[in-house]
């Protein structure tokens, strides 16, 4: 046990802190809106120049070119969090496509896409799920059939977050209809503006609040060159799994921060003239949540140590997503209870608290319990891969 980072890393922390003091934007610049996109691009480019974004991506591909160092990443995240600004851009291009291209892409694909993606010049959406293929993703049916040097894509994708604001999509399609279901899939890069693509917004339970817009995307004979395949034809399933691994890594949550916000709310909120923090029942629930938040925080440190030592975390590494998502939902549930009958106020109406944050947080956490592998699929993975319990026998074909 040694929780010190040591002088070299503390110096790095000071450097990040100084950078943020000097350059932190006065107002948020995360918007993908075309009129203000240049602000995002400028801010991301500045971060790359200083090595706080795209840090380990080679310079030839538009990155900073540093050696990977997990502790530096942790320190950057901590300091940006502390300053209340997003580090880089929390989007599927940088977090999922770029690592995939670095691992499986051709030289041409890397040179063309990585730099612009990291700088926010090209925005990506992920096209995996389909109406008939959710937990059983490998059963997907969107097809890409050969037509000369091209593919023609037809089918439908769902849960494509941000497709309405994206320039490009990375899509899983079936290219080898004769092959086994896992072996017939390819990973394709497709411009969202291609003829034959129709993006329809999918309204979710969170309604108007929250920028995370979902869509359905319809493909009708969408033409892309065969060179748009990442990796080899038929290897899309394997490649997608690398991407999903990156998604799960990026599902870390800041439970401690949410808990502080909840405590602040409870201090401010009162009912019948009594501060809600004075209510023993509410206070007890808050303390139960604090214990869970502390558990997840230190569990994160334990998992980080495993990564630093390149040790396998075993079953302990499989439980994080399940537990964090439920914890987030439970924190928003307490917040909503604390607000009592006013907890349902929404859409920036009069008397609404925290600009609707808690209801939106509740909806969004519920979505995350399901998205990225449902809680039930997580429990299958934990018990089968983590505890070695037998798989459920496949039913005999009907």
């Amino acid at each position, binding site marked *: *046990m*040694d*929780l*010190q*980072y*040591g002088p070299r*890393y503390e110096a790095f922390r000071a450097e990040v802190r100084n950078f943020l003091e000097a350059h932190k934007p006065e107002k948020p610049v995360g918007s993908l809106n075309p009129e203000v996109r240049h602000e995002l691009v400028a801010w991301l480019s500045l971060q790359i120049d200083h090595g706080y974004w795209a840090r380990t991506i080679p310079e030839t591909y538009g990155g900073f070119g540093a050696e990977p160092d997990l*502790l530096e990443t942790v320190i950057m995240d901590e300091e940006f969090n502390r300053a209340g600004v997003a580090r880089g851009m929390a989007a599927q291009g940088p977090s999922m496509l770029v690592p995939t291209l670095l691992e499986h892409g051709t030289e041409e694909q890397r040179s063309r896409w990585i730099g612009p993606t990291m700088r926010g010049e090209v925005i990506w959406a992920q096209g995996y799920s389909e109406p008939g293929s959710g937990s059983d993703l490998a059963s997907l049916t969107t097809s890409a059939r050969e037509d000369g040097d091209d593919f023609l894509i037809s089918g439908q994708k769902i849960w494509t977050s941000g497709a309405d604001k994206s320039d490009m999509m990375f899509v899983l399609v079936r290219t080898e209809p004769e092959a086994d279901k896992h072996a017939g899939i390819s990973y394709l890069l497709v411009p969202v503006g291609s003829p034959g693509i129709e993006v329809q917004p999918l309204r979710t339970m969170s309604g108007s609040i929250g920028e995370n817009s979902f869509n359905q995307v319809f493909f009708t004979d969408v033409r892309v060159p065969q060179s748009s395949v990442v990796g080899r034809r038929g290897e899309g399933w394997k490649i997608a799994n690398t991407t999903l691994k990156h998604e799960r890594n990026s599902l870390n949550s800041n439970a401690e921060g949410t808990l502080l916000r909840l*405590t602040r709310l409870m201090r401010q909120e009162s009912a019948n003239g009594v501060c809600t*923090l004075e209510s*023993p029942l509410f*206070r*007890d629930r*808050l*303390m*139960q949540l*604090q*214990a*869970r938040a*502390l*558990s*997840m925080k*230190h*569990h994160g*440190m*334990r998992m*980080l*140590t*495993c990564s*630093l*030592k390149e040790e396998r975390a075993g*079953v*302990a590494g499989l*439980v994080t997503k*399940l*537990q964090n998502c439920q914890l987030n939902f439970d924190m928003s549930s307490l917040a909503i209870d604390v607000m009592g009958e006013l907890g349902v106020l929404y859409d920036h109406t009069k008397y609404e608290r925290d600009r609707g944050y808690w209801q939106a947080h509740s909806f969004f956490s519920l979505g995350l319990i399901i998205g990225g592998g449902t809680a*039930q699929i*997580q*429990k*299958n993975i*934990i*018990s*089968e891969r*983590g*505890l*070695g*319990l*037998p*798989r*459920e*026998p496949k039913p005999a074909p009907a």
Partner: protein
Amino acid sequence: MDFGLSEEQLLLEKTLRSFLADEVPIGRVRELRDAECPNDVGIWRSLAELGATGILVPESLGGSDLSLLDAALVAQSLGHAVTPAPFLGSAVMVPIAFRALAGSETDGWLRGIAAGEIRFGVAATELFSIREEAGTVLSDGKLNGKAMMAMDSCAADFILLTPDAGRLAVVRGDAPGLEATRLATTDATRCATELLFAEVAPEAVFEGAEAVIERMLDAGRIALAADTLGACESMIEQAVAYAGQRKQFDRLIGSFQAVKHMCAEMIAELEPARSLLWYAAHAFDTMPEEAPLLACHALAHISEIGREISSVATQVHGGIGWTDEQNLHFWFKRISAARHMLGGPAWLRERAASLQGLV
């Protein structure tokens, strides 16, 4: 940055677990439930030979002067094997208090603990829960009154007592005027005692010990949480093993999602709690200002998940899990008896809130 166990700690755990598996198997625990006191002297001596009883005793007094995390790993192994031993009081709480009070008397006791020659009971229940008009008064050098649910005190050589939140007293187990009655509890692996004091002269009294008592309770809470965590760990192992061999409807029951998910939920609660426990134990030695809050949260949280895990692990076994023969109840009862030993979860959470100024 290294948040994990060292090679030495992993070895300590491995050595202890293999010793307990060989020397104190569940059959031995069953025998001891019929003894007058389950705290068998032979087990205690063997633990001393392994260095476990002196784990927090300074090297100059024959101990190994290790950290609370090391002590917690021992407690966890004892919980895992449901071993009857007065470890929590004698090897954790008493050494933590005596180290802070360093003097010639306490040195002698610490030496005896490390050598496995002395066993201490601890009577501190009234600091957090007064029932049955319990309470002891120390005045004019004499103790009078009653202490309830004292730990490991029916056959102890000495008892460490807290007459109030600011003083510690040491009493001989055979002191004239002291009447110790073991109370039967559900947990056959521990000893809970009622102590009646009539003009009992203590061996030693330590005044102004408020901070020492708090430290002692924090350490005890972390070690007790570790004991429960170890017991939970074993129950999950037993449930998973059973689910992997028991067949119903021509299938291993572990292949049914209903059963699988019960197991997944148990381990999903356990692993982050283990991380919390490690941090709390580490904080006790290196970040003492954080320790009281973490000790409360660790014990409260692990007591809560302990209740759930002990119930679910039993259910995975079906009817056989409810029988005496299957032995699971030793773990179930050890977990449930720990729940209120050093403050119940609700009390601990209220203390956690008050430590942060939220009350």
